[in-house]
């Protein structure tokens, strides 16, 4: 049973989301499709989602591209910089599976979920802006709304 304060916190958090986009070695296609989400046609900002790109002040990390060896440690460090509660959305086929680069000869260390925990994956090469917008709008507020109660469970389990 959640208290009123917890529910209020969850509601407020789910209505104001700051986003950081990280390209961990992709081909740019997904990045410009995320950028296209900010045009009038798709308009991500009408849902209270703001493109910020400062990991220390953001709630959501959008990762595009397969994780290259140069990015593996840096991505972990970047993930630690994002304050709780946080969510990670992997956008594109490369971020979901390593994609076309994850084959013989490719210098990538696989999908994003093997490096940092991932909450949502958007497949496609590149996914259309509608799909990216719907993924963020569906998944992310749900995560933040229930975070207060989940935090209590996690603390209890540790104790």
């Amino acid at each position, binding site marked *: 049973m959640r208290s009123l304060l917890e529910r209020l916190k969850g509601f407020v958090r789910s209505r104001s989301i700051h986003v950081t986009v990280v390209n961990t070695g992709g*081909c*740019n296609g997904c990045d410009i499709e995320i*950028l296209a989400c*900010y*045009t009038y046609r798709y308009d991500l900002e009408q849902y209270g989602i703001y493109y910020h790109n400062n990991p220390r002040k953001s709630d959501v990390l959008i990762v595009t591209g397969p994780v290259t*060896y140069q990015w593996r440690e840096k991505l972990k460090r970047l993930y630690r910089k994002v304050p709780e509660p946080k969510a990670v959305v992997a956008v594109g086929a490369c971020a979901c599976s390593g994609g076309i680069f994850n084959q013989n*000869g*490719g210098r990538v260390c696989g999908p994003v979920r093997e490096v940092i925990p991932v909450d949502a994956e958007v497949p496609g090469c590149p996914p259309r802006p509608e799909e990216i917008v719907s993924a963020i709008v569906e998944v992310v507020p749900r995560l933040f709304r229930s975070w207060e109660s989940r935090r209590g469970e996690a603390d209890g389990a540790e104790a």
Partner: protein
Amino acid sequence: MERRRKGEGNVRVVDVETGEEVPISHKVPIGPNHPILKEPLRIKLAVRGEEVVDCKVEMGYCHRGIEKIMEGMPWQKAAFLAERVCGICSHAHNMCFVGGVERVAEGEPAPRGLFLRVLVQELDRIQSHLIANAAYFYSIEHETMFVWNMNTRERVLDCIEEITGNRILTGWNVVGGVRVDVTEEQLERVLETLEEVREDVKTYRRIAQTDPLIKLRSRGVGVITREHVRRYRVVGPQARASGVPESDMRLQEPVYPELGFKPVSRRRGDNLARILLRYDECLQSIDLIERIVDELPEGEHRRELEIRGGHVDNRVEAPRGELVYDMEISPGGVVRRVTIRTPSVPNIRVLEAIAPGCPSIADAVATYASLDPCVACNERFVVVDERRGKVLYEGRAREVIRACSRTT
């Protein structure tokens, strides 16, 4: 005043004329993740107060080994991989690869296919230039122009989707022509949309020319001289904005001479000249597309070609400049070795020469954005020792290929 760096690791700046060491107050690293950078890259600035004294660019975050993956692939698969070298100028990569394979094949590709290929290439150029200018306006905090440019770009992407079926990575070129034919109605719809795009681009060019705030931030900042062009091999719109129109590789491509193509150029070479030149080229591309639609030859859009194999060196004018694919193809169309040289490598390197004249750090970042950098394009020439995290080879493609074959 020309300055050069001395020493390997430390940033020590020595004035060439007087031989004295220039005092610096701070080193400012920008990246690999930074609001202004679409892609990972690190710029190390040495500053004295606000004045930028020295600049060093560090690349290598996007290295995926595309050239190595491509070895031993049939062209049907390698064309898709070539497209994914860069997402913004993807069509140019695809076209350059497929054109290279066609040059070692028996017979001629279908003329209608070649014209359609150029049509999509010009549409791709418009959207790439618009996103480059949008990134520049975002870097000088002019968000209205950023959003306007991006909105117009959506219309151009609609045209690309109308013809090819996808917005960004189209997979449109095949050896011998293009994948699907277009109808008259599709071309009419494209021309209608482009008519509106032309009005928009003219408005943006007028605003960029007359707006006092844009002029304050852009006029006279980050000047690339002809000397820089010669020394760093700057290519593409960046070179043409400095008065080098002959750097346009479209003069040597097959279809463009039939269309009466003449490159545009400007002389000043600063940030504003580069922005305006991209708008000029957008308008020129729209004219070219109209001429292509008028002169589109009838007949088949694709022919079956037999690939003999051999060594080929193909050049295409990508939106950012000259793109080179140096390939060895075996009979039947299997790629044996490929070396890609993308235009962004020299275009980013020239930042090390022009950033030290910038009056402030913000101008250095804006200059970087005005060079239309595409990091995903660059990063194949670097071999990194992963245990020590050190860059072993950088720059020479053939050496790197040899080193890659040794390490894997």
